[in-house]
């Protein structure tokens, strides 16, 4: 397999290099040169060899001419904070021409640092096309050549570039590559400016109807630190006499001064609407594409409207068990998306870690949306645990399950995910 990979890499490098170095007319003429070479092998049959020689000389002269001239342009990117997988992102490039002559007919492209450790959506590859798709996926985006507006001498000009992220996570920019044509207009000379930047690509998201569950607020044992007091939160209800063990910070000092005896403030217990979003990250043997689909589903649910009172707990197991809470001033949905952009499937922890995590949090949840990667006995146990705590549960199994799921459990694939999410709420 390794020689094949090397061949693929070589072919890709050649075709990518040609695409960057050849102008459109140069591309056509190079094709003609190859054909003329094939037909001009026998110089006695026709005059095709003369066309071959003519084009060979033209390319040689073009190559020589492209060596002249210095590169007076520097650039910097103005990137937004986030991009989203599958959605074209436009960003600006500030170009400074330090030279005394205008620069025209330039093209520019981004050069990416590949993320080799990132799990690919498809582990097996055999054809060149599949390999190329995977390589582009690892880079994170395709680096197409963009035309640059004319750069007047000693001036800063803006150019608009477009990229479409192919995968979630950090997209690492390594450099900018500029192409400048030579006088014959066949070849471009490439100039590389190292320019490292990074951009977080959020998971692909689909519309989800507002989350409305029947069950209401739940008692939050010990309260929720820092949560905004909306609704029946940690509310002040009255004063009472001090009892040993009351924390001194609850002493109402004014009443203490009036009465001469300590009086403490009394608060009502906290009852919040709290939803869980459980992401199954146990992908033993499953297609990595399935996990990507599940992350998309989780991101779509995380951004669904859920009312101002509700908290949303994102529960998943990465290197260890995680629970992130958003809502009521605790955290923004954007932060949940950032987490989902970087979540990786788990390959070391047992499934019981997720059960333990859920057991800790189930008591406080009003409802829970479970994004599962399969349907088997362990997953059924997980849902039973939730139901046993009286948590309203909604499950979505991504990909074809190992065994037929119970009625009411939805099944979605990468193709049907959008439709399933659109009718997630009954």
């Amino acid at each position: 397999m390794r020689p094949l990979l090397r061949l693929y890499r070589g072919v890709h490098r050649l075709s990518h290099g040609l695409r960057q170095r050849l102008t459109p007319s140069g591309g056509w003429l190079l094709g003609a040169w190859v054909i003329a070479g094939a037909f001009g092998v026998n110089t006695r049959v026709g005059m095709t060899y003369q066309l071959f020689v003519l084009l060979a000389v033209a390319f040689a002269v073009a190559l020589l001419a492209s060596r002249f001239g210095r590169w007076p342009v520097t650039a910097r990117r103005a990137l937004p904070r986030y991009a989203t997988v599958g959605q074209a992102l436009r960003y600006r490039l500030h170009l400074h021409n330090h030279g005394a002559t205008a620069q025209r007919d330039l093209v520019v492209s981004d050069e990416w640092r590949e993320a080799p450790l990132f799990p690919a959506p498809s582990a097996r590859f055999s054809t060149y096309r599949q390999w190329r798709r995977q390589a582009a996926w690892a880079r994170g985006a395709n680096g197409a050549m963009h035309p640059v507006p004319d750069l007047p001498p000693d001036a800063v000009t803006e150019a608009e570039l477009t990229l479409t992220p192919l995968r979630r996570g950090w997209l690492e920019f390594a450099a900018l590559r500029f192409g400048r044509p030579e006088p014959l207009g066949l070849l471009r000379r490439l100039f590389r400016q190292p320019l490292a930047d990074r951009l977080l690509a959020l998971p692909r998201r689909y519309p989800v109807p507002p989350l409305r569950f029947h069950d209401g607020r739940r008692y939050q044992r010990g309260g929720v630190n820092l949560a905004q007091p909306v609704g029946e939160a940690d509310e002040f209800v009255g004063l009472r006499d001090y009892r040993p063990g009351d924390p001194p910070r609850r002493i109402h000092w004014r009443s203490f001064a009036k009465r001469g005896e300590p009086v403490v403030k009394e608060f009502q217990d906290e009852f919040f609407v709290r939803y869980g979003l459980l992401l199954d990250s146990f992908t033993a043997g499953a297609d990595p594409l399935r996990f990507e689909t599940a992350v998309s589903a989780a991101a779509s649910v995380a951004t669904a409207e859920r009312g101002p009172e509700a908290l949303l707990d994102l529960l998943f197991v990465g290197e260890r068990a995680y629970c992130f809470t958003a809502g009521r001033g605790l955290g923004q949905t954007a932060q949940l998306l950032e987490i989902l952009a970087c979540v990786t499937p788990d390959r070391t922890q047992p499934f019981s870690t997720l059960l333990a995590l859920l057991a800790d949090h189930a008591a406080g949840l009003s409802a829970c949306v479970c994004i599962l990667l399969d349907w088997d006995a362990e997953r059924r146990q997980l849902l039973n645990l939730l139901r046993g705590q009286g948590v309203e549960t909604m499950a979505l199994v991504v990909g074809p399950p190992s065994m037929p799921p119970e009625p009411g459990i939805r099944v979605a694939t990468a193709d049907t995910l959008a439709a399933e999410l659109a009718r997630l709420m009954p």
Partner: protein
Amino acid sequence: MTLTPPPGLLAATLLFWGWRIGLWPLALPMALVLELAPRVGWRWALEDRELARAIDLSTLLWVGALILLFTRYLNQPPLATHLYTLVGWLPLLLFPPLALQRYSTAGAFRVGHLFHSLRRSDRELARQPLKLDTPYLIACLLAASVTPQANYLSGASPLLLWMLAATRPRRYRWPLTATLAIAVGLAAFPLGLGLHRLQLTLEDHFTEWFEGWFIEVDPYRSRTALGDIGELKQSGRVVLRLKAAPGDPGPWLLRDASYNSYFDGAWQARNTRFTRLDPAGDGREWILIARPDGPSRRLAIALELRRGAGMLPLPAGAWRLERLAVGELQLNNLGALEAREGPGLVEYQVSHAPAAERDAPPAELDLAVPRREQATLQRLALELGLVGAAPATAVAKVRAFLLGQFRYSLDLSAPAEGLTALETFLLRTHAGHCEYFASAAVLLLRAAGVPARYATGFSVSEYSPLEGTYIARRRHAHAWALVWLDGRWQDFDATPPDWTGFEDAQMPWWQGLGDLWSWLNHRFSRWRWREATADDGDNRGWWGLAGLLAAILSWRLLRRRRICRPPLGLKGSGPDRPGATSPFYRVMDTLATRVGARPPGEPLETWLRRIGAWNAPDLVEMARWHQRWRFDPAGLGKEEQQRLAESVAVWLATQDASR
């Protein structure tokens, strides 16, 4: 992908191609059609699907051209010749889609039109516009190069340089590009010549090496399958067609060569020499020998010649050939006739008479028995009572011996230990194919002192109702003996007569389809070589079909009534749009040289604000007048136009002064 050559260049290249290929009467209207497109006011309103159909039509043309050339290749290899022809036809094959592109409202194809897999795709590649102008220009240059006429570079170089100069990057001035382009043209001349010389030098050194690659049918040597192992299988491809005069019942043995020396499974023609024949009459009549006494019969034979050359199968006693259009004909003293410089298909008439003798009389070689088989053959000759018998008796005894005790078989078995293949046949297996029977007959007769030769050719006995002629397939290739009887060479076929049954048992179930294809191919070959076969009138059907298709296409296009006269540019974007002559453009140009051009899509005011020019009140006022002139339906009055022009002049003067 959307490069457009400058006006006139495409037409010039097309005419150059026409001049080189010799099709300038065709190239001239094509060039006119392409160049007139910008000047005519109408366009076909073709939808996306119809543009894709146009590509399909062009693909059909390609397929047709490929089938045509492949059929011609079957008749007349080598393949390279036909590939060159295909390249030479490129401008013709690409012309319909290009013309449609130029005369359609779309003005360009999409990459998705080219491939079925991309037609419904939403990939960006499928949506990219594709103009065929530049590839067509290159195709014309390539097609013009396939003829061996000199002066290619003197035409191609200026055309290529014109293209390079016209599409040069804007950052360079034309003298620089032109200088480089001329340098390219000048350097190409000596380098091209050098490359040609290099090939000639290499060929001189490696000629011997090359020659070994091209050994073909050899009238001097015939290797048999004697001693081979396995099963003899030959194809059912029809290779020869024969028409006989009424009353001539057949079957016919048509000999293409005869050999006089046997060694180790191979027959050779030794001490032979070819004599070149001169044509008589209209140049298509060839007299092999003087007209013999007695009545003659005629056979019409149609045969495909590979590369226009090959051995011509003839019946015994052939003395004259008619309607044979070949450049050269040679006859050897063993009666083999070789044609050269001929077409891919020859149809000739043979006159033959029993008394005619084109083979040399017996020589010493015609009695030679190979040393390895000598003992066996002489012992057999004694056993059969051949020695001392009259030639006719010896022939009858050999015939009786071979037909009585031997059977026909296509299974090839290895020679027995210590025996040659022929001895194994004679002593052990008693089974074999025609080469065994012919070789055994010849050598037994020679052992008996009767001169004999080994002949190869075709046994023609199958009648094809489809074609109305007798046909010979490749598996009907046959070998027999020539024996000197009554003062002349006579055919002596010692193979059991049921051998054709064995051969025909090999016929696959699809043979009927193969025959149909072969017949169609033959009809096409006759049309293709109609001058050589003197069979004109056949091509009328083809021209009729082409005319019918053209008529259907024209009717389909006209019936749709989709020829429309759209404005050649959008209102408001052409040179006659309102405000096109606004002097404010000069202000914008001046600003653009300083801070860069306004990006497409950015409104004027946004741009002016972004570059910090919106602070100057005079500029703001001028911009507003300009915008009113451009977009206000009421337009800008003469007086205001005058004031705008004056303001612009003042502003420009200020800028010049400050610089």
